[in-house]
């Protein structure tokens, strides 16, 4: 076995069963240590798939590794077992529990332990996914003040790099780790082939840029890596519906849309009659759109990024 499988944390269930949260570690060189993390929420299998794709390549280039890569494929296995966003039983969102606490319940203790491990790494990348109701293109997010993370994100083969002005919420991992690089795409509880492969290639390129292994060992030419549209929060154009009904999209993700173009319509689910046309307020690329069609007034149905 060319990697080390370590148990990071044991969740003891009331029945006495133990669920181990593990990580795979590749290489042990003097180069940088990179932590790749997925499955903080249980409805994000895309990240787990991507990390195992990366793991396959790391196994093949074991001799060439000059740094260390810690892969945490799924840190919330109880939720993932149910395809649920939150930690079951406690109904706790692990993504809002950082920095955790050493004497708390299991999610808090895990968050505390995990953060300690991640703080020891030179670079931390978290794989996330869209909410199951949405479909989105591969994209990166970093806090606007972190120039190192932004520089790395530009090498991650994503369509869009968003410089977030603030952490998305109190207790989020980026609040505890301001240099965190967040990669996401696809849809919650789904695997999207193109998104997974793009993100896997992006992570491998990022590891090469970090000199974890030589660039020549990449399974593709570095010139194939796409460069993102870089934007701040103010370049995002959210489109919400004002009527309830079924949202029928008229555009696909990453379509180049002109101002006024049709993004979709809300129809009466019983008669099929159109209740509302959703049109683009400005021109831009479709970053995400609603994939679950049932909507209430005020639901987000499309997000564009101004180019």
């Amino acid at each position, binding site marked *: 076995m060319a990697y080390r499988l370590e148990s990071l944390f044991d969740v003891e269930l009331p029945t006495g069963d133990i669920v181990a949260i593990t990580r795979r570690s590749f290489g042990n060189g003097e180069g940088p240590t990179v932590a790749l993390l997925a499955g903080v929420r249980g409805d994000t299998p895309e990240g787990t798939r991507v990390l195992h794709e990366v793991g396959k390549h790391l196994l093949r280039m074991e001799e060439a590794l000059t740094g260390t890569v810690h892969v945490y494929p799924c840190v919330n296995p109880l939720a993932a077992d149910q395809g649920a966003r939150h930690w079951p039983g*406690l109904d706790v969102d692990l993504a809002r529990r950082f920095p955790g606490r050493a004497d708390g319940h299991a999610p808090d203790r895990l968050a505390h332990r995990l953060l300690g491990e991640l703080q020891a790494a030179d670079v931390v990348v978290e794989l996330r996914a869209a909410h199951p109701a949405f479909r989105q293109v591969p994209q990166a997010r970093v806090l606007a003040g972190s120039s190192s993370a932004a520089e790395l994100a530009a090498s991650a083969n994503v369509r869009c790099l968003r410089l977030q002005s603030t952490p998305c919420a109190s207790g989020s991992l980026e609040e505890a780790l301001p240099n965190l690089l967040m990669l996401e795409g696809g849809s919650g509880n789904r695997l999207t082939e193109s998104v997974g492969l793009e993100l896997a290639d992006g992570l491998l390129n990022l590891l090469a840029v970090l000199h974890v292994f030589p660039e020549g060992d990449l399974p593709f030419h570095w010139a194939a890596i796409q460069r993102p549209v870089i934007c701040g929060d103010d370049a995002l154009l959210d489109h919400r519906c004002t009527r309830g009904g079924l949202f029928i999209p008229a555009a696909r993700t990453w379509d180049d849309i002109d101002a006024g173009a049709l993004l979709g319509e809300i129809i009466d689910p019983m008669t099929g009659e159109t209740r509302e046309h959703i049109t683009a307020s400005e021109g831009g690329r479709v970053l995400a759109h609603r994939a679950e069609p049932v909507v209430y007034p005020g639901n987000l149905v499309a997000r564009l990024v101004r180019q």
Partner: protein
Amino acid sequence: MSVVFSLESPYRGEYRLHRLTFGSGGPVTALVAGIHGNEVNGIQALNLIASMLRLQRVAGTVHLLPCVNLFGAEEARKRWPFDDRDLNEAFPGAADGSPVERIALAVLDASEADVCIELQTGSAAVHEAPHARVPLTGPAAELGRIAALPICWRRSSDRIDDGLVGAWRAAGRTALELRGGRGGALDLDDARTLARGVVRILAAAEHIGSTERPGDGVACTTVHDHRATLGGFFVPEVRVGERVAEGQLLGVVRAPLGGEPREVVHASTAGVVLALRVYPMVHASERLVRVAIPEE
């Protein structure tokens, strides 16, 4: 009763935010329950208050919003059922935001008042004694004392700035939270106790005359949590609101299959049981019993 906000739903009748208003003019007090759809004690308490106010001449104005998350309540769900969002995390809300943000803003607008009170319960797994959660000092702390529920927990401001109560405070209103019972279950005694606390506050604000006697609750600023060291099946030996002595048996964590004792939990301090785990399957480090330590 009036509908102060509505939201079109895709398939069923529209969501409506109902408000009952008694009296007119100032001062104004607003009472809100059912932000979490499964917290039915607050709904029952406000319905008791409504029954009483119908029989009284009310000075000033009292607004009641007895069940904000009506769709959640219909399905015994804490969150807004459509997208599983927690309404209490959507405050202060937004007019052009998501459905829960629009409802949150409507609640904030509909509860504009000098004094704002929210009624809540513990989670579905935890039974809480009826108590007030208030700041350490100020008018809300004084109202918590006047409510005279079994416990008045005065807390530092950094722990009470979330949700609806936090939004009220940010808007400069006097706001407090009254809690009791547990999610998903109606406890008539707890609901009555909460209603009595509200009546004392309404009487102190001179909205109504009241014959409600002062309560004999305790005030505390410190609570002590007793947590499980091991996971298992927790069987409590005390009840919420019970006074316990230091060293008293609080409960036993047993093996779920076979019942052998794994851990005996004793009170580390004397006090009053503020919250008790009632769903017995517990994980290691989960809170079993919260004891409020009365002020001297």
